[in-house]
């Protein structure tokens, strides 16, 4: 009920907020589809304009009520989703054993040519491919577009690197159980979930961080300590503490010191992971925890225990610096690379009022005048993921369930879950725009138009009819694929290129390739 009232209020308030520079319903629908979604599918700008853009935004926010049948069916293709963390851990263990055996075999025979390996190693590789492709398929097919955009945003904000050891099998459950259920929830819950996630604990080494001088109880571990391997850690590791403050919450200028980092690291000693044989779930190791007094961010922590860490995370989630740092990053994603203070302040305000309800923060951004300002339209260059997914959607193409489309995204510079640095990928264009990457995009566009893009099947007949009338053809490409954004110059260049092309199907291929590879489609 309250929601409906709010929606009506928003629908009424929006034109007023825009003042004299009001966008047409189609303009605002396209803008919303570019930012809150991975671009429009053919005809979608009109359907959103008909519904009313603010109503569509509210529908996207309340994603639980949007049916997503097509995607649900498609997810059955992904074996990855049939396995829980324990089962994946088991397969990882089997793959490691197989690799060790192979290495022994290689050492014995002196044969250094690396066989690709069938069985467990191959299965693990395929599951890794599933993980990347699932992200692409969801982005293309889901009706719950804003949720997919936010899953991508948070997975990048709380980056983990799937190439690091145990994260090969921990990342799938990180995405499914840690990020996805919290993507539009409360920031504090998301922060705590990431802190407890085995993937993050392993990625930033907190699983190995123990109070100096501590050692695990029991004869077994004593035996292991005395053994040749000495795998038992013997000191604190600051890695997670540092990135938690610098990247996840306060931001690099958030006013903390090296002493704070050490205190935070001590608070998190003992936050660790069970052994893979036992499922590799979160485990708090009492024996590894530093029970001494700590002083972090001006607050005293006494008595120790796991609750100390939770208390610290709640404290961090409620800091103004955190609200500002994360809000600004959200605005850089949704508004512009260097977002105006207005939308950032509005987001911070909403964060304060709602105690970090992510929907409330997003609503503040989507209703801010900065979001709808003319200079925000098409101000952002698409990331490789956004480019590939939006092109596939614009052409009405269907992604298959193999790894190939995700590999296209990788080649354009954004291998998913494979950013080693905890910063994740930047939200700004300077990262993505360079001559090599642009040529890669042109190639992908031409391949998609010709039906040769790996991993995507396209039937342009459903989108633009092939016709010998080139002017008609280019107008249809503009209307259906570029939502009317084609410049007069682009139109003229495409027409000139078609001048000596007689085959209508070939003409259509060229026109669509140039349109999707051209400058207009690189922006959103």
């Amino acid at each position, binding site marked *: 009920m309250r929601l409906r009232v709010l929606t009506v209020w928003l629908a009424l308030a929006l034109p007023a907020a825009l003042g004299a520079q009001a966008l047409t319903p189609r303009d605002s629908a396209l803008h919303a589809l570019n930012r809150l979604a991975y671009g429009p599918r053919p005809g979608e700008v009109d359907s959103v304009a008909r519904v009313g853009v603010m109503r569509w935004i509210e529908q996207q926010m309340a994603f639980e009520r949007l049916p997503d049948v097509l995607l649900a069916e498609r997810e059955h293709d992904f074996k990855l989703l049939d396995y829980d963390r324990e089962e994946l851990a088991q397969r990882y263990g089997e793959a490691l054993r197989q690799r060790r055996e192979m290495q022994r075999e290689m050492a014995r025979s002196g044969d250094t040519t690396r066989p690709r390996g069938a069985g467990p190693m191959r299965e693990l590789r395929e599951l890794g491919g599933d993980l990347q492709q699932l992200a692409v398929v969801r982005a293309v097919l889901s009706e719950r577009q804003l949720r997919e955009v936010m899953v991508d945003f948070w997975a990048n904000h709380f980056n983990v690197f799937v190439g690091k050891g145990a994260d090969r099998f921990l990342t799938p459950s990180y995405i499914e159980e840690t990020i996805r259920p919290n993507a539009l929830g409360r920031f504090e819950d998301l922060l705590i979930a990431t802190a407890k996630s085995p993937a993050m604990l392993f990625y930033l*080494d907190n699983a190995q961080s123990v109070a100096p001088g501590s050692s695990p109880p029991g004869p077994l571990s004593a035996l292991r300590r005395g053994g040749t391997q000495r795998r038992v850690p013997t000191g604190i590791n600051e890695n997670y503490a540092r990135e938690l403050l610098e990247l996840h919450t306060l931001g690099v*200028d958030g006013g903390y010191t090296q002493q704070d980092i050490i205190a935070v690291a001590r608070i998190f000693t003992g936050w660790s992971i069970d052994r893979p044989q036992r499922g590799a779930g979160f485990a708090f190791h009492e024996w590894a925890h530093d029970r001494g007094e700590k002083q972090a961010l001006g607050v005293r922590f006494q008595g120790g225990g796991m609750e100390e860490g939770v208390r610290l995370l709640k404290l961090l989630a409620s800091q103004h610096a955190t609200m500002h740092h994360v809000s600004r990053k959200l605005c850089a994603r949704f508004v512009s690379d260097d977002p105006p203070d207005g939308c950032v302040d509005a987001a911070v305000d909403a964060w304060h009022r709602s105690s970090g309800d992510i929907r409330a923060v997003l609503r503040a951004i989507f209703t801010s005048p900065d979001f709808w300002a003319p200079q925000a339209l098409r101000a952002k260059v698409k990331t490789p993921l956004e480019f590939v997914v939006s092109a596939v959607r614009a052409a009405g193409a269907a992604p298959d369930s193999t790894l190939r489309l995700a590999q296209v995204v990788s080649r354009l510079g954004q291998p998913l879950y494979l950013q080693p640095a905890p910063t994740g990928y930047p939200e700004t264009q300077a990262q993505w725009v360079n001559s090599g990457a*642009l*040529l890669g995009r042109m190639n992908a566009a031409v391949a998609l138009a010709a039906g040769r893009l790996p991993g995507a099947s396209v039937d342009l007949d459903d989108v633009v009819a092939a016709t010998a009338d080139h002017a008609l053809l280019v107008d249809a490409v503009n209307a259906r694929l570029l939502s009317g954004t084609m410049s007069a110059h682009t139109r003229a*260049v495409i027409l000139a290129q078609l001048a000596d092309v007689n085959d209508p199907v070939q003409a259509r291929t060229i026109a669509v390739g140039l349109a999707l590879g*051209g400058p207009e489609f690189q922006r959103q």
Partner: protein
Amino acid sequence: MTISRRVFVKSGGLALFSLGLDPLFLARAALASNRLSAQPPDRPVLVCLFQRGAVDGLNMIVPHGDPLYYRERPRIAIPAKDLVDLDGHFGLHPSLAPLKSLWDNKSLAAIHAVGSPDSTRSHFDAQDYMESGTPGLKSTSDGWLNRYCRHDQEHADTAFRAVAFGPQLPRILAGTSPALAIDDLQAFGLRVPQEGARDKLTRAFEELYDGAATGLLASSSQEGFAAIQVLKRVNPAQYQPANGAAYPPGRFGRSMLQIAQLIKAGVGLEIAFADLGGWDTHINQGSSEGQLAARLRELGVGLAAFAQDLGEGMRNVVVLTMSEFGRTIAENGNSGTDHGHATAMLALGGPVNGGKVLGRWPGLDPASRFEGRDVAVTTDFRDLFGEILARHLGAPDLGAVFPGFSPSPQRFPGAIRV
């Protein structure tokens, strides 16, 4: 001509910004239109290699003459019997043995205890500072290699003057001077089988971007199309390394091979950049064998192959390795090392004052450590980078490359022979 363009950019930039044309684009476009296709003369080349993740300088260039080294690293120190001794005090990690002949012929030097005056132990910040060249200042928008290119326009005449190997242009080359990011020379350009059709499509895209693109999209596409023209001549698919050089498999080896190829092709390459990761060895770093050893082997084999492939051509080339910081002197509880401060860098090439470990060695004594735990910085990285720019590339104005800092010849570590 350049000056009048710059004045135009300066005065017109602000007004045009509101039209969606940003000054960065204008500056790049001005430079791009200034290029000639003439073959440049035999010019000096600088190859920068970034070891991302903070290499353990103490296990790369090992101070084996210092007993503290072995005391602090009971599990991961390199045993003296495995080392390649350099001067009785320092030795090469055994994985770098392929570089020993270059040390012996005085074209390889190590610079120890080099780093940033900023104390950050964040990879992100420290890499950012090393690439922007302004430690402690986050707001610098461009990289120091790009600023060098901008302030030394004598050579701004080819699309291949500054090339980064990788899918993205790194921070160090970001800025208003044109620079190319190339993932693979052979795949650079539009992939259409027939040459005629390829040329036609290339021209169409060139026109599209020429007329309808703004900002970085415009300047980057322009750089790309200019490069396609040059590469057509070079024909990278036909390349064979010389002198039996064997590059290591993988991305780094391929980058080194393609840098060698561009140098030999005489396309005007002056600055090349590549990076290699995997140095953040918090856990199970290994000693003579293991994680770090494997990464160093790839580096050593790659550098040795590069020097062999170029042969005589190394007389004009300097290869410089860099890394954002070093690692703790003491090993940690996980048989690894944590984020530290100073590290070691390598300089290789004909102009290098080789066969020496340069820089003032502060020792491992607790009293001389940085914050009681790390190797102290005795050479500011800007003094090393500045020396190479000035004495190797002939940079006229280091103040413009490193704003707020004046590299001084008195402080240069002496990496380049004078």
